[in-house]
């Protein structure tokens, strides 16, 4: 019942609805050139918490500097080295490829959370995120979400911790209408897909919870075993915004997550 009553998060960004997004911004126009002109993402570390990243995939351009995986233990799960750098699905490699295509000099770090143990989903995510906060990662691409009310407090605490720790979380809204955490928290940059085939087109939605729309329909992406496929979903829109954020953070190293989000909004297509 409630599911059908909930909005589809990509709805504000489809062509027939986009006129509703136009408004007069409070700061006038911010030129994209000011925000990230000349930037290639140098010095920025972007973590992809996903299914892994294929180290040798041409789309990653050799920028994968470290690979980890979350391993369950009797106690809390721990983050360990994953020297083989595999991607069990292809999805994480797709996200990494998109980030690399926008911010070619940004360093990529893979934290693989999809493993054979499904029970510790929240705990796995927590371990990955805490690791990222503690290891100098400044942007985290998160194409995962949960609608579990049970995980709400944990996700809320962690996203605040990231925000206060100067880590920008770029989080995919779920494609399926309904609650999706952590994408619906105000401390993250939440992203849904639009239908314009251009990685440099993004929209700001002044009516949260989902604030940004990026390229996510029929995107040509990297996939497992060195392959490529055409993919659709909010989880492919998200790394576009993560890549743009990497460009902004490289040019403005002192910019906080709040300021990066403001720049993304001010430079969005109108």
């Amino acid at each position, binding site marked *: 019942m409630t*599911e059908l009553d909930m909005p589809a998060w990509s709805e504000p960004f489809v062509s027939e609805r986009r006129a509703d997004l136009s408004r007069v911004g409070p700061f006038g126009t911010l030129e994209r050139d000011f925000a990230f002109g000349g930037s290639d993402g140098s010095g920025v570390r972007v973590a992809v918490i996903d299914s892994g990243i294929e180290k040798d995939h041409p789309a990653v351009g050799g920028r994968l500097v470290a690979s980890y995986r979350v391993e369950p233990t009797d106690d809390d799960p721990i983050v360990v080295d994953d020297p083989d750098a595999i991607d069990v699905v292809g999805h994480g490699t797709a996200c990494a490829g998109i980030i690399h295509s926008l911010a070619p000099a940004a360093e990529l770090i893979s934290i693989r959370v999809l493993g054979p143990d499904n029970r510790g989903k929240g705990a796995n995510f927590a371990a990955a995120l805490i690791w990222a906060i503690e290891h100098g990662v400044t942007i985290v691409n998160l194409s995962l979400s949960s*609608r579990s009310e049970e995980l709400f407090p944990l996700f809320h605490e962690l996203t605040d911790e990231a925000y206060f720790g100067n880590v920008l979380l770029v989080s995919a809204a779920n*494609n*399926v209408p*309904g609650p*999706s955490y952590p994408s619906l928290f105000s401390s993250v940059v939440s992203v849904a897909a639009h239908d314009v085939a251009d990685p440099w087109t993004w929209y700001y939605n002044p009516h949260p919870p989902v604030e940004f729309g990026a390229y996510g329909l029929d995107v040509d992406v990297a996939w497992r075993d060195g392959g490529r496929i*055409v993919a659709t979903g*909010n*989880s492919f829109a998200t790394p576009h915004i993560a890549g743009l954020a990497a460009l902004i953070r490289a040019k403005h190293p002192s910019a906080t997550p709040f300021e990066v989000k403001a720049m993304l909004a001010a430079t969005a297509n109108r």
Partner: protein
Amino acid sequence: MAADRRRRLGRDAVSVLEAIALRAEVGLRVYGDSARAVLRSIVDATVTLFDAEAASIALYDAASDRLVFEVASGEQGQGVIGLSIAPDQGIAGYVFRTGQALALSDAAHDARFGRAVAEQTAYVPRSIVAVPLVSDDRTIGVLEVLDKRSAATFSLRDIELAAVFAGQAATAIGATRVERDIGSLLESSLRALADADVPEQATLDEIVAAATADLGRDDSSRLWPLADVIARLRTADPDQLELVTDILDALHRRATRDSRRRRRSRPDGGDTSESR
């Protein structure tokens, strides 16, 4: 003291749970087919609406830790029924693990996203949309639609539409009020029973194991053909059902009487429950 109370709770709980487990198992037999019928009608509708080659629903089976394809529709879908995959592999695994719906196509490339299943069915899809089945905040399975005939890829709208069908399927599964996983049903019942005095996880596991020990495995039990007959009677009219109930009632009374008589006639008056 605490251990004592736990043991007592354990004994009481086992007898209550045995009764629940038996009902659930009978319910599963009786209603199992109708739940499947609803799921089948949902994949049928999905195939028709999308004009797709196939649609399928895989549900997570906790006992085997596999995603099992329960129903499928469309010319290319049949081969998948009964197959299972690891819950962290491939597209279905990703969607199951992350709850994140996806649409993929290999229109321009040699992608191998359906490989694991494709190798078992000899059908390699060109495009696929996969959405999670969510019931009570939990992802319980995945709905997949393969190869829309009218287009090379699935749109954002298609993903949302597939999600509506997945919602129907999840509701249908919930509505049968029969937990597929009797273990988790019992565990939740036990937690409700115990309330303030929640036993340790290990104790819970033991109690559930004790209560379900005889279920499921004994497929040769004569009770199950009876449950199957009762399942078929669901369509009978009220008068006929009343008659059947009376007959079964009479049989039950007679069986109880017989067993009492047998027990009395034993010289040592010993326990007759030889089958445990």
